């Protein structure tokens, strides 16, 4: 009787536990949030560009094809309104977006309307406010920003976001495309799904082994 209870209880724990894990995974992957489209991997360590009203700074940047907004970093200040115009040029096309809000967390996310040009291009930032604007980046001269009128060194921290809020399910195919980059030759977009299949197989095997093991009589 005691053994039967122990076996039943362990099976219930295993089954309920696995369902809970699966449900948690589904719930987590269903959470929506703005998703990253790309970044120039420059940390916002310090101000590297100081723009007075009307000043413009431009920097080379590879624009991802799924970019719908540009994210710049400024010193956080919940009080001051920032007014900025960002122009993105690539492949002979351009688009421009405006920002007019405080930046309490130090992040300026500028929506880019219409069709966003993709590929090797340039991002230009114009200070359209009444006060000065400091843009954060890294004070390393690996690719100096070109600025009309005021010289700087260092590189601006630039990131791009996809449009709106998306769940992980929505961006799964995009992740699969990114997954195959920087990998050995045999890897393709299919490899992400293969990796997930390997994990699923491992989980199934572990569950079966546990179910078998907890049914065994002690010696």
């Amino acid at each position: 009787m005691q053994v039967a209870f122990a076996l039943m209880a362990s099976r219930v724990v295993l089954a309920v536990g696995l369902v809970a894990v699966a449900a948690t995974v589904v719930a987590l992957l269903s959470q929506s949030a703005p998703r990253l489209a790309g970044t120039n991997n420059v940390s916002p360590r310090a101000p590297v560009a100081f723009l007075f009203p009307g000043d413009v700074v431009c920097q080379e940047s590879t624009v991802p094809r799924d970019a719908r907004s540009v994210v710049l970093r400024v010193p956080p200040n919940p009080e001051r309104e920032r007014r900025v115009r960002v122009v993105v040029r690539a492949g002979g096309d351009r688009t421009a977006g405006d920002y007019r809000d405080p930046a309490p967390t130090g992040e300026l996310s500028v929506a880019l309307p219409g069709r966003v040009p993709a590929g090797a291009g340039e991002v230009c930032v114009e200070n359209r406010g009444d006060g000065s604007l400091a843009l954060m980046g890294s004070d390393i001269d690996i690719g100096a920003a070109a600025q009309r009128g005021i010289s700087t060194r260092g590189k601006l921290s630039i990131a791009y976001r996809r449009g709106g809020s998306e769940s992980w399910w929505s961006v799964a195919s995009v992740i699969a495309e990114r997954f195959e980059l920087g990998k050995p030759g045999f890897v393709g977009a299919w490899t992400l799904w293969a990796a997930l299949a390997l994990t699923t197989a491992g989980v199934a095997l572990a569950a079966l082994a546990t179910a078998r093991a907890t049914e065994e009589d002690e010696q």
Partner: protein
Amino acid sequence: MPVAAWICAGVALLSGLTWSLITPAFHVPDEISHFAYAQYLAETANPPRHVRGDYMSEEQLRALVGLRFFTTIGNDRHRPVWTTAGERRLRDALFGDHGRVSDGASSTAVNNPPLFYALQAVPYHAASSGTILDRLFAMRLVSVLLAALAVLCVFLFLREAFPGTPWAWTVGALAVALHPLFGFISSGVNNDAGLFFASALLFLTLARCLRHGLTPGRGVALGAVLGLGVVTKLTFVAFVPAAVLALGVMAWRARGSDARRALVVAGVALAVAAVPFGTYVALNELAWDREVFGSGVGAHAAPAREDPGEASTGGLVSYAWQLYLPRLPFQDDVHAGVPLRDLWLNGLIGRFGWLDYGFRPWVYDLGFGVALVLAALALAGAVRLRAMLIARAGELAVYALAALGLMALVARAGYSAFISLEFPFEQARYLLPLLPLYASVLVLAARGAGRRLERSVAAAIVVLAIAHMVGAQLLTLSRYYG
């Protein structure tokens, strides 16, 4: 060999394969140094030396730049190659005619003996017609295979430690197979993968000797494992005192008529252990012009402090104490935070990449709660099984000395870094050679729940391990691709 043992090893293999695919190239800690070592050895048949110069080949350096490696590590907001333009630049670097031979100079891996890297030369050459990324992946597969073998050894160790409780062998081995830090580290070109296998094999060998007696065959096996472990990673010397104690325990047990035979076998074991290490020392002296210990076991190629401190025995003891235990009122506070939780527990729950990403804080808080529950249950399990544990006190002393030896060596290396370097040395993975004992504690925890509930707790442990692994792999996918 029970089928369950192969299943547990299979789970480790599947987990490791997944980690090796989802972790971008060189993003396992120190993988750039370990790959550089293996490449130099494969290309020149010589290990690198403690000399100035480039430790990476031009091929590797160009690949790292193309992969955006240097701007991705250290910042979890940064990403590897995500664009076709970036991929084109990477391919230009991969398919360019760049040298594969570096200066063979100092790196974080240079102190390591060459056994693991010699093993890695096999897949390196097998994939030599491919790009550096193809070769790296082939080499990663060897590490994954070693991880699977380590889990096999853990299963068999648990069979010795808990005879008569078959479910315990599977549950403990699965907890190791599914452990994300173990899977992550073992998925890369890092000689920790060799160390984990060697240490699991040592624990198994010790268990077999202590449980079934020291025969000449087992003595030779023990010596061989000890010797090969040391020439896999010098950290393994931490286990030598435990092995010597084990031989002493077995000689004591054989006192009387078999004492002389036991001592002879023990001597043979130590002699066998000395052969690989002696060969390594001789090769360093006579063939490679290389130091054995260089800047010490666990040397760290971090920037030196401008104002190095002064080492002292009291300082070392205080440092080591505080590394694992709560600070005593009279001790100077030498560690940031509480290492037992912040470094070891949180690190074992998961800090991944080059320690540049991890879970949300609530996961570590939850893990702390789970750890407390499991610790309490393990204590209860030890009480329940006290008769068995007391009867096997000699064996337990060996395992305890093995753990203490490793912890002391890590503390010693950490103190040296504390005195002279800018960055801390310790990482949670440095205690992963104790995974067989980790698995044993989990089994004790299940046993601590009592007859009616022990199998349920065992099942819960596996479910938690599954959740942990899945969570860590999804976290990794979001960090690099999301």
